[in-house]
């Protein structure tokens, strides 16, 4: 799993002189201090972002091992690392001030080599990048991996474009009234607008707008808005609304077209079933399946965790499965008390109420894993995405966080 490089030697000079002098210590055996490099990013690895520790931990979802950490500067809400497979780099949009939480602010993108995880560069960008608790759609790499797009909020809604080859800021383009960045091509992306449309823009290499088109209004931002969390399937982006309507947007057409269908039947709706969570959905591109966290609840519960993951076949336009999530609360408390397994573990499992999951991700390989967390629990569950079987937990993932990011 791990490779070792860059041996740095002995620090034994700090041994007490007396210890050396009176021969109580034999300086054999001796193990040198080494430094680990990352193996090539595997399809089953996942970044787990924590807002309290202000960092992301990379886990191997097969072994449950943590592989590495990328820390964030002192901005409020850390953004997950963005993986460029073509350059084998991670990009982290950050912001920091001169005196901790005070003083002049600098926004920048840190470039990490994905093998050494050393910071290779900081690219300073205009101080306007936005933040939200989950930063869903707040920064994305456009297709091909050359251009990073970052959503800005203050003083204006816009998107900054950064050339990751030249490592320079290109320009920003106005996206007033819209939020989020959903890549659709090498120099194009879509954004969700308050008037119920989805706008797609394309720029040239200098960041100048060369195409700008919108879908017709396909959702109602007040009565049944779509969640910010979109799922990409090839040339399509799939969104789900508060009530469970699935909007499948196809960017091959110009302007993009939308196919909408309800993921919730009338009886289910009467039971209150609806999608809910932070990173509420994830799609497997090859299988063309959409996975969505569902719970029975009232209006206003659209960020609540849910006990189930519903699986939709995007081609057929129908639900094909419902997975029940394991009791992550019980596992978390058992871990806290050091009581894993055994009778007490079983007791906890049956006593502690499960609050469910609110954050979902999926790996894109042929044996896909579904990754689920509850933003206020220190563990994440790993499920077989084909069967819903609970395979294992990732433990000690942090204190609180709203993102799980699969690097490829």
């Amino acid at each position: 799993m791990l490779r070792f490089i860059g041996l740095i030697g002995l620090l034994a000079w700090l041994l007490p002189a007396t210890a050396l002098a009176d021969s109580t210590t034999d300086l054999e055996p001796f193990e040198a201090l080494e430094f680990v490099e990352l193996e090539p990013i595997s399809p089953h690895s996942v970044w787990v972002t924590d807002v309290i520790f202000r960092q992301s931990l990379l886990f191997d979802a097969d072994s449950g091992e943590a592989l590495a950490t990328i820390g964030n500067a002192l901005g409020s809400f850390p953004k997950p690392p963005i993986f460029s497979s073509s350059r084998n780099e991670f990009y982290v949009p950050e912001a920091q001030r001169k005196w901790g939480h005070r003083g002049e602010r600098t926004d920048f993108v840190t470039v990490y080599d994905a093998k050494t995880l050393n910071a290779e560069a900081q690219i300073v960008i205009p101080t306007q990048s936005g933040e939200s608790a989950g930063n869903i759609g707040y920064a994305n790499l456009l297709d091909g991996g050359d251009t990073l797009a970052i959503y800005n909020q203050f003083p204006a809604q816009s998107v900054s474009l950064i050339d990751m080859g030249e490592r320079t800021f290109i320009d920003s383009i106005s996206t007033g009234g819209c939020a989020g960045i959903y890549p659709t091509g090498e120099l194009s992306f879509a954004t969700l607008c308050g008037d119920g449309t989805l706008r797609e823009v394309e720029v040239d290499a200098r960041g100048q707008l060369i195409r700008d088109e919108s879908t017709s209004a396909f959702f109602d931002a007040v009565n049944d808005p779509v969640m910010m969390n979109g799922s990409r399937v090839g040339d399509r982006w799939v969104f789900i609304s508060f009530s469970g309507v699935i909007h499948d947007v196809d960017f091959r057409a110009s302007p993009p077209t939308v196919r909408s269908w309800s993921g919730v039947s009338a009886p289910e709706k009467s039971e209150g079933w609806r999608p809910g969570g932070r990173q509420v959905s994830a799609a497997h591109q090859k299988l063309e399946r959409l996975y969505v966290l569902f719970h029975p609840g009232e209006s206003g519960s659209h960020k609540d965790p849910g006990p189930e993951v519903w699986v939709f076949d995007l081609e057929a336009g129908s639900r094909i499965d419902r997975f029940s999530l394991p009791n992550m609360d019980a596992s978390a408390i058992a871990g806290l008390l050091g009581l894993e397994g055994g009778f007490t573990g079983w007791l906890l499992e049956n006593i502690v109420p499960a609050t469910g999951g609110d954050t979902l991700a999926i790996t894109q390989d042929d044996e896909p894993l579904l990754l689920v967390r509850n933003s206020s629990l220190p563990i994440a569950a790993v499920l077989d995405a084909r069967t819903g079987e609970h395979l294992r937990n990732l433990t000690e993932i942090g204190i609180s966080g709203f993102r799980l990011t699969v690097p490829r």
Partner: protein
Amino acid sequence: MSRLDRWLEDSARGLARGAGRRSFLARVGRFSLGALGASTLPLLPVARADNESHALPEDVDGPEGDPGDCNYWRHCAIDGFLCECCGGSTTACPPGTSSSPVTWVGTCLNPADDTHYMISYNDCCGKGYCGRCNCNRNEGERPDYHWYRANDINWCGGAPSQSYHCSVARVIGRASEQQPER
């Protein structure tokens, strides 16, 4: 972090208005016009009386009446640490913090008079997470593109420091009907 911590502070709420508000508003207005894109955004309120605040009915028992409780009626669309538990109050930022002139609103039902009020949830900024009385409720809350109803956004982005500390829940008007939603 623990949830729904019972917290027994007297509600200390200031009701006086500052003389500097109109000039502050003028600045904010300029800022908003130039800054926030022309497509959706509102201007200054057109018609407001400038007289003193009416006192709100306050005799609510239980968690709906406890400003340090997540179930407090004003918190129906809040997201974050309650300033009540961080050295501030329902309407005041804690010592040494600043705030953003832009923020999100909610429409909450006051059980004392069965009336819906507009609530402004200002973030108090310039210190790290307070870490107490974490509360997330989302009645009428909307995604980031419907930004003035969106509580996920770090509204400290518009403050002198983007560090998020805690949130208040001020009444800024009466709403004749509930925010539509389903």
